[in-house]
């Protein structure tokens, strides 16, 4: 509606520039146009476009609308790793066929739940770990248009229901990072849950030929052992993360990345 008002305002006041700022002929009476409903991004499309150019002489133009909006709803973290009694925020992400690339649309998902509340519970998009184990968490959108950009006389509404796995396990802290200690694995980390004597390691997929650097100060004291590669002016620093989550049986990590990669001066 806001766009339509601005557009009509532009015609009434002889402001004949297109969206790119190019001047349109003053005697323009027809052409392609696009309407976007700025007040309801969720609905994504209008089923009919009707633009009255000149009320005085009865010149009206009708046009079919293009449906566009979010395409497929996906959970940002799958699996989502949690510790017992801990919580984590999940987000629903999508690409938008109207443009704009990847977008977070969690606000369009008012309903969240888990398959097993003995393992995890959901309060909107905040998932809470109850006990060790694995279950799914789910979300449901409001009725809205989901799909590709296409010509249509109407934009059908549906409710997307994405889900992801939830792994609840034990928290692990970084106990050591090894840099160039093993010829096969230039950089890796050791994590532990000291109370249960759970120790696990992970080598990282980093390029060979890097140097060991000490970065930052950790809560336990002392800097963290990181790994740095340099290609031209592009410097990448890989650092093991401080905290991770392992399964209750201490056989594997159930979270995602074990390290961060920070790039400076890279294209």
């Amino acid at each position, binding site marked *: 509606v806001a766009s339509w008002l601005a557009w009509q305002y532009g015609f009434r006041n002889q402001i004949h520039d297109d969206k790119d700022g190019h001047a349109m002929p003053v005697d323009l009476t027809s052409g392609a146009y696009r309407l976007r409903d700025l007040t309801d991004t969720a609905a994504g499309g209008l089923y009919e476009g009707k633009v009255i150019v000149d009320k005085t002489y009865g010149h009206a133009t009708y046009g079919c609308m293009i449906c566009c909006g979010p395409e497929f709803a996906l959970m940002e973290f799958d699996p989502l790793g949690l510790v017992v009694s801990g919580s984590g925020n999940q987000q629903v992400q999508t690409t938008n066929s109207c443009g704009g690339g990847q977008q977070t649309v969690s606000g369009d998902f008012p309903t969240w739940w888990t398959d097993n509340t003995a393992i995890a519970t959901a309060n909107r998009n905040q998932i809470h770990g109850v006990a060790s184990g694995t279950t799914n968490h789910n979300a449901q959108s409001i009725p809205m248009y989901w799909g590709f950009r296409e010509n249509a006389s109407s934009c059908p509404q549906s409710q997307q229901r994405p889900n992801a796995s939830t792994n609840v396990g034990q928290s692990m802290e970084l106990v050591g990072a*090894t840099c160039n200690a093993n010829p096969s694995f230039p950089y890796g980390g050791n994590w532990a849950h000291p109370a*249960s*004597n759970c120790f696990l390691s992970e080598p990282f997929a980093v390029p060979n030929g890097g140097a060991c650097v000490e970065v930052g100060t950790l809560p336990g004291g002392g*800097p963290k052992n990181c790994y740095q590669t340099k290609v031209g002016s592009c410097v990448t620093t890989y650092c093991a993360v401080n905290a991770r989550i392992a399964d209750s049986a201490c056989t594997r990590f159930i979270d995602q990345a074990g390290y961060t990669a920070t790039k400076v001066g890279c294209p």
Partner: protein
Amino acid sequence: MTRDRSAASTIVQSGSGTKASDASLRITIKQVLTVSVLLFIACAQSAAAQDRTNHGALLVRISEVTIDNEHGVTATDCMLVLPDGGFHLERRKQKLPNPTASLKIFESSLDTERFQQLRDILNDDTLQNLPPYALPTFPMNNLPWFSDLEAEIPRGPTVKRVGYWVWRGGASDRSPNSTPDDIKRSWQESETALRPLLDWFHGVEALRLTSSDSKSNMCGAL
């Protein structure tokens, strides 16, 4: 645990051998026995569950961790021994680049000789007087190899935690090399005193044990 299930099984067999001349009486006795057996099984399972979580009911919990970063091997073994000689053993081994550690669980009962050896070790004055275990500061940077041994032993209403940390390499001004001297001394003292317990533990691990399908409980730590 296996031990509890076999105990319940014994009762069932003796109950089924009851003889009575009156058929109805036989049914009544059978029903009473069935209820008794079910109650016993429930109690036994409850007691077993408590055993795993109640430190007051354990004889010792042993945990040994060895991380060899040079060769990409992480091994963590733990064992929970109950006062009646039943035990639960978990052995994990991770060989990089495999992100998953293998896990084998064993449950059985100690023979009389090994059980007595353990009791003698735990009752030794040297072990009883060890200082509480203090962990090094984390993280430790670039250690090619390190190992940790811990034992939890009930002493009255509390559980005494003893242990030590051993390692190779690392920068002199970084953990664990930078650990205060008194703690390093306590690790050395504990390493000597806990040697018989470690040898005993390795002796049990070397036995031909049949793996169990029991679930991990981190030897009662969780």
